[in-house]
């Protein structure tokens, strides 16, 4: 799950950067990247709280 979260956050950040640099920061691609980022962040916290083995 950690790797899925990392991948989603990475993809979301790349899309966001691309939308800022090459798509005139239009809101639609930005919101797409926001959706991907939120999914990644939620998965990250679910993994942290429920599945991570704590020392």
């Amino acid at each position, binding site marked *: 799950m950690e790797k899925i979260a990392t991948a989603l956050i990475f993809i979301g950040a790349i899309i*966001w950067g691309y939308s800022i640099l090459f798509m005139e920061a239009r809101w639609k691609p930005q919101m797409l990247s926001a959706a991907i*980022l939120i999914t990644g*962040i939620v998965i990250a916290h679910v993994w942290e*709280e429920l599945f991570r083995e704590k020392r």
Partner: protein
Amino acid sequence: MARERVSQAEEWQAWAQRYDVEGGIRTFESGLTLKVFLGAVFIGLLMMPGSIYLTLVAGQSGAGAAPWVAVILFTELARRSFTTARRQELYILLGLTTLAVGSGIHYRAYPFVWYAYFINTPQAASYEIADKIPYWVAPAKDAIAIAERSLLHMDWFWPIAIFLIMKLLSEVRYISAGYFLFRLTADLERLPYPLAPISAQGATALAETTGRGETWRWRVFSIGSMAGLFWGFLYIGIPALSGVMMSKPIEILKIPFIDFTTSIEGFAPSGMFALATDFGQILQGFVLPFPIIFCEFAAALFTQFFLNPQVLYRFEILHQWRPGLDMRGTQLFNNLDFWLSFDMGKSFSFAAVGLAASIPIMLSLRKGQQKGTSMRGSLTPPPGRGDFPIWLMAGIWASSMGLYVWIVHRMVPNFPVSFLLGFAFLYTPLHSYINARTFGVLGRPLFQLPYIHQATFILSRYEEIDIWFVHLPDEDYGPGTQHWRVLELTGTTFTSDVLGRVLIVPLLIASTLVVWHFVWKIAPIPSSQYPFAQTWWPLYATEECLWKTSLRDGNSQMLQAIRGDYVSAGFTSSLAIYGLLWMAKLPSMWFYGIVGGIGQDPGMMIPRVLGAFIGRFYMIKRFGLKRWFMFNPVLAAGFTCGVGLVGMGTVAIALVSKAVIVKPF
């Protein structure tokens, strides 16, 4: 070596423990006793008329320092009577006197006299508002009650009845929602509330003065108070006292900032830099978490020296800025062009991140409950704290809000009820939750949607003027959550606080109405008897007329400033920063610091940054981490008390002097 990942919950837990100087071990006691209640009523009723009067005369009420004066008086009485005062009693006294002294000092808080004036102003007549003011706001402009300047008249029945119902319902909502959010942010999410220990430790230090032995707290509090008295005299006292005799007051340091914006425009056009001169904020720098202050400052420097001049200005996003603009002008135009929208977006990201973090915590609670874990990080309250069932408080808030919406709907029956429901049950919870979280982390609210009322009125296509006189159900319970954390830190039972408020609020409402009646009887408001009101109320009346008629042509500059692309940029970039920090296994404090600092003026943060560096690199080494975190809230509380006392004293001297000295010109 790979960095070990620390979850957000664990990180907040560690910080919360650092601010909980007694290590979370405490017994809870009731702070409400008969002597506390009578003391609060006596001091409150003694000071409240003075506060209202001073506000009308000078625009300053002195309400900030008055509760501390009350607490010091109370402790002195206790010492002279050979009894002791407990910190729970002092904190309840502090809370109740704050309520009492602050009650009605703003002309909007008890708006009857204001509307009695407004309805008869030439502005209201010329803007065609005077005849459209609803009966539940003020009686007719030729009513006997207005002519006789009396609030104790049947003409005021509907305005006062509606006001009383709304006020009592609002108390219920603020108590229940504040408690609910406290449980969510402090108990469940374990947010540290860094500024809460200041009030808690102030009350504790003063309580110890009535005991037999004085501890380190009283010594540290005294050092803070003396520093506060010295700084207050330098920063507030000298300008206030010299202003009595001179046409231009002497300012040792320019108040409130020294503007360097025009000096940096050569290499950082559209950047702003104004150095805050209130070095009392160094004390805040001692208290707040170092990573937050450092990241805030770095992000603000990046904004003003790179992002604004090299990106936003170069690409003409900041298109209204012109060379020669000072800090205020630069801020206004930059906000209109970009930062207003961006800030809205980044505020939404706080809510998104908060929900993403708290929902898994709630899910993990089921596991925790099965294993029998409790205390912080769960919704099981510590024993003896005087908690209420969380569902009960949620239910009370929902019923009270529902009743409120129903009353507002009856007052403005043609206004679409869906907007009222949206404000009450969508916007208010979201707004409050975001600000509760930012209070829990940064010690200040960050979320404010500007001009949301105007936007709503445009979208609703409602054209009647009565909607402007209604208090729409958009409320922010976020700042109130800190109060519950202070109660917890002082070991005061929640039930005693609620009972105190329930007992004193009806008394205050009644007495404030009576005081306003008598103040109005002394002389018309505004008039030469009330110079501040005489100067400013006509301007307020004009402003109010402009607002209430601003949408008649469907045009508002502020509404046009909000742009979807920039809002989404603020939202998404903040989420990306959070995500990338998580990937790099860096603390989430960095996120709150960076996002909080983007768009801000770094000069305004310099005193706090100085405090943070002194604390981090000198004080901690000198005293040790644990002792320093025990000392600094007490020091800050003493400092606040000292500055408040000197401010109140010098303003009083200035007022008396102005009243008796007749200038020969």
